[in-house]
């Protein structure tokens, strides 16, 4: 069957009212958490995992993808109006977007972000639909050694290309890998690093770690950081609509952002934040009015916002076709697939084709819903920003502990009549870890990706070595793995050069760390 037929069938499935409802819930929640500073799509999906355990797999996954897309839309609103990015991919948007808002052009800034996100999301989702079958065909020939090389590449791009220091990125990754060791080894049944605690035999739950790092860690950091406790909110003044001039200046930026963002998400060459940074510097060099950059140039909002949405769609290519998560949200979505007994990868496209195509098609539907939700209803979302912080973060912690208890509420330890939920103790411990990571500028995503991808990488490594009877040479034997290792090396070296050059220009105020 051709891609068109598959996509058409997917669309029919996506347009069933249950799936439309899941998509609507997803994009609404996604926009809300994208708008609210401090919570993002990764945390929301992690919190919803236990709740969706008993729901329909296709519907739940459609909802998760809607949250991911919605988060990318909502993040721009916070960046533009609050100058505090809702998530890392919107940092660049704040540079020009907040300047525009202060000049009373917040409306057009929000509009160009929303329309740019729509166009990028649309084109990139179509890109996903056409590239995915091709990658699947290619991936079916992969051996364990190739998969291991692919995961090494993912480790490198997630940890070394993100953030501003390869040293801190890799440290975060290895903390995740170390946590992934805990529990019973699946191949031999041997217990590793459980220290005699029965609760640790099953390993660390991805959701517990993600909720702790994102919700508790963020709450602790926000409450203690004097710079974050008072943020200025710029109200929208003037017209919400873009002028003809705005349209003329935006359309090429949207397309350029899409072209930059999609491959970066798909390859995987980094996350949405990398894509938006690159798009920003591209817009700066393409612009006919470079002098406006830093003073509210609309291209500087249009390009990066298109790029981060295109990159989010691109991220789904390795996730669906190879089972390879390259962002924290993708890592948790992978956990979501596993919860339903589904393993993303080439076989998913043959064994669960209707589900995959319904998911891809529903992204197109979700994208349209997001445009409607974000343009006329922008005032509703803006009101979310006025929730006082004590109530907002109190509520976040209530839901964080609720989700953790719902996933694993066993009161397994304790003393006397007081029984203690071990999972909540872990949540607290990882929450403190999350605060420390934030305080010392360690990225969070590599920890989550390391925890979920570490055991998978180990499995492939041992499988490869078992085939070769212990000969390490097999790891480099195939051309595919050699190309992947070369790409991994490039992923360490290129950002190093970029950090020294491009980033100095883009974010001059941040210190560069050459380690």
């Amino acid at each position, binding site marked *: 069957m051709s891609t068109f037929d598959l996509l058409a069938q997917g669309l029919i499935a996506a347009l069933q009212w249950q799936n439309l409802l899941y998509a609507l819930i997803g994009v609404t929640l996604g926009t809300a958490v994208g708008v609210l500073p401090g919570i993002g799509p990764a945390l929301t999906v992690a919190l919803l995992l236990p709740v969706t355990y008993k729901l329909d797999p296709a519907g739940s996954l459609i909802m998760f993808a809607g949250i991911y897309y919605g988060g990318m839309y909502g993040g721009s609103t916070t960046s533009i109006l609050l100058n505090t990015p809702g998530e890392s991919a919107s940092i660049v948007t704040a540079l020009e977007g907040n300047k525009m808002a202060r000049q009373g052009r917040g409306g057009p800034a929000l509009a160009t972000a929303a329309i740019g996100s729509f166009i990028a999301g649309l084109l990139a989702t179509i890109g996903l639909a056409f590239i995915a079958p091709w990658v699947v065909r290619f991936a079916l020939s992969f051996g364990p050694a190739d998969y291991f090389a692919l995961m090494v590449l993912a480790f490198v791009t997630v940890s070394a290309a993100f953030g501003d220091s390869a040293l801190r990125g890799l440290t975060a990754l290895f903390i995740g890998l170390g946590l992934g060791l805990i529990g019973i080894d699946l191949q031999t049944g041997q217990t590793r690093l459980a220290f005699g605690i029965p609760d640790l035999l099953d390993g660390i739950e991805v959701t517990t770690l993600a909720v702790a790092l994102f919700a508790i860690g963020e709450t602790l950091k926000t409450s203690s950081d004097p710079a974050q406790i008072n943020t200025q909110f710029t109200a929208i003044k003037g017209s919400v609509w873009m002028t003809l001039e705005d349209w003329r200046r935006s359309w090429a930026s949207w397309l350029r952002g899409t072209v930059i963002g999609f491959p970066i998400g798909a390859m995987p060459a980094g996350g949405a934040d990398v894509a938006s940074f690159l798009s920003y510097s591209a817009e700066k060099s393409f612009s006919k009015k470079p002098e406006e950059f830093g003073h509210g140039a609309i291209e500087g909002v249009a390009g990066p916002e298109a790029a981060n949405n295109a990159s989010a769609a691109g991220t789904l290519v390795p996730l669906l076709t190879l089972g390879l998560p390259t962002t924290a949200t993708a890592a948790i979505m992978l956990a979501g697939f596993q919860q339903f007994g589904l393993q993303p990868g080439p076989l998913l496209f043959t064994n669960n084709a209707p589900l995959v195509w319904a998911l891809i098609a529903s992204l197109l539907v979700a994208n349209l819903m997001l445009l409607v939700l974000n343009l006329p209803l922008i005032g509703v979302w803006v009101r979310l920003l006025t929730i006082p912080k004590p109530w907002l973060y109190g509520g976040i912690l209530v839901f964080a502990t*609720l989700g953790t208890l719902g996933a694993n509420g066993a009161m397994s330890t304790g003393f006397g009549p007081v029984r203690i*939920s071990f999972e909540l103790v872990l949540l607290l411990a990882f929450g403190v870890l999350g605060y420390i990571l934030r305080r010392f500028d360690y990225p969070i995503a590599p920890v989550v990706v390391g925890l979920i991808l570490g055991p998978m990488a180990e499995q492939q490594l041992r499988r490869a070595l078992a085939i070769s009877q212990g000969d390490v040479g097999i790891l480099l034997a195939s051309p595919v793995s050699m190309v992947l290792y070369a790409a991994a090396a490039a992923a360490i070296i290129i950002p190093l050069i970029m950090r020294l050059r491009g980033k100095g220009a883009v974010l001059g105020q941040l210190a560069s760390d050459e380690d």
Partner: protein
Amino acid sequence: MNTGNSGNMRRPDGAALVIAAILAGIAVVIFWQTSLMRVPPVQQRVGPTVFPYVVATGLVFLAIGTAVSAFRNGFPARSKDDFRPIVWIVGGLVAQILLLSTAGFSIATGVLFGFTAKGFGRGPLWKTIPAGAVFAFIVWFIFAKGLQLSLPTGVLERLLTTGSFQ
């Protein structure tokens, strides 16, 4: 963010050194625990100990790198964090953990909510804890009754859903 660094260029970053020590400590624990594992000879080559050794070795190198970075002041400047809110929020989480089995979800989580609000400068506790408990009960009702999520039940939940204390 580099401003002010020139003055203490030669003084190593103490906190970063502590992080380096912790990373090295974790590596030692992994090495030690893995060496205690008894692996059958068949699995010796590609058994369950290979990956832990790889991770621990990586952590050793990262600890060294962190220490070097500490001496070269490679860490970005840190904000002057106020630790009082952290004590409140962590205290709230600990209180919730201890109260859950006896007081039930709503009351324990109400305490967490109140303490968190206090951490963000909103009080007084005798108002915020009951408000949090009401909120937690509504959430409990939706998720435990509506979505069949298994959540700890206490006095308040039983009283409000069945009308009895038992």
